[in-house]
């Protein structure tokens, strides 16, 4: 019970932080991205604030190797910069630059009842669903190929 409760509390605090930071206003995010116009550097301060705490939290988690409940810490294992990371991040940047909304603020905007936020969130969920379908398709394809003896011989 402690884990779902902590996750709920963390999500709630995260959302309150987002609202206070001003990042739930897409216009403010777009002003940060508008380096050639009237530039609002606030987003950089949000990241610095978050990292100033996050840095020590991740350092502690790495040193302990376990959580405070002695359960394992799940850190991403991938280390290489691959094409998926590059193209995915560029595509995300395109969408972000078009409207000034990223996933966290998108959810908060939708929950506070903004029609635009709801449209964004539904489309984002659809995008994630499409990704999931494509991934499953790709994985089952490569499994089939792997099992074919002809493919193994060619290697």
């Amino acid at each position, binding site marked *: 019970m402690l884990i779902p409760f902590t996750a709920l509390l963390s999500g709630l605090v995260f959302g309150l932080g987002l609202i206070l930071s001003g990042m739930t206003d*897409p216009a403010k995010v777009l002003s940060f991205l508008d380096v050639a116009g*009237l530039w609002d550097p606030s987003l950089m301060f949000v990241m610095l604030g978050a990292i100033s705490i996050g*840095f020590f939290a991740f350092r502690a988690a790495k040193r302990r190797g376990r959580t405070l409940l002695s359960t394992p810490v799940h850190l991403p294992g991938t280390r290489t910069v691959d094409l998926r*990371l590059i193209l995915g991040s560029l595509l995300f940047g395109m969408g972000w630059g078009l409207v000034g*909304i990223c996933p966290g603020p998108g959810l908060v905007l939708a929950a506070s009842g903004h029609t635009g936020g709801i449209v964004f969130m539904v489309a984002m969920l659809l995008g994630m669903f499409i990704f*999931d379908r494509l991934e499953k398709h790709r994985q089952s394809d490569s499994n089939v190929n792997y099992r074919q003896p002809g493919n193994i011989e060619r290697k």
Partner: protein
Amino acid sequence: MIDWQSFTPASAFTGGMIIGLATALLLLITGRIAGISGIIGGLVELRRGDFAWRAAFVSGLLLAPWLWQWLGELPPVHIETSHTVLALAGLAVGIGTRYGSGCTSGHGVCGLSRLSPRSMVATVLFMIMGMMVVYVVRHSLS
């Protein structure tokens, strides 16, 4: 040129620290990374076993504006983009963050906090791309 009228370094930094605290709480108790796109992506996948903490985190995030509204007034929001563009952008953000394994929270906050080279590359790329799109939309199309 800096927009001094809109620049809010104090509330931005404080809000950021609160986001950092939420990240620390999730990491040190549940052992999970507070990357929003990854958490929602896991829900969309309907993976068995780790549904509860994801659903709980997202519920907390969705409750935040309600709690805020209960205590005071939500800050003003300006969305000037058409619904068509919002939908296209949403699709791009959904697919892009899943292929790129993260968004502003997963790469920008958590990844940079743990000094991950992948997250540094991702953050630089989505920021530069975002800036380029804003430049094209605001300064070369109009």
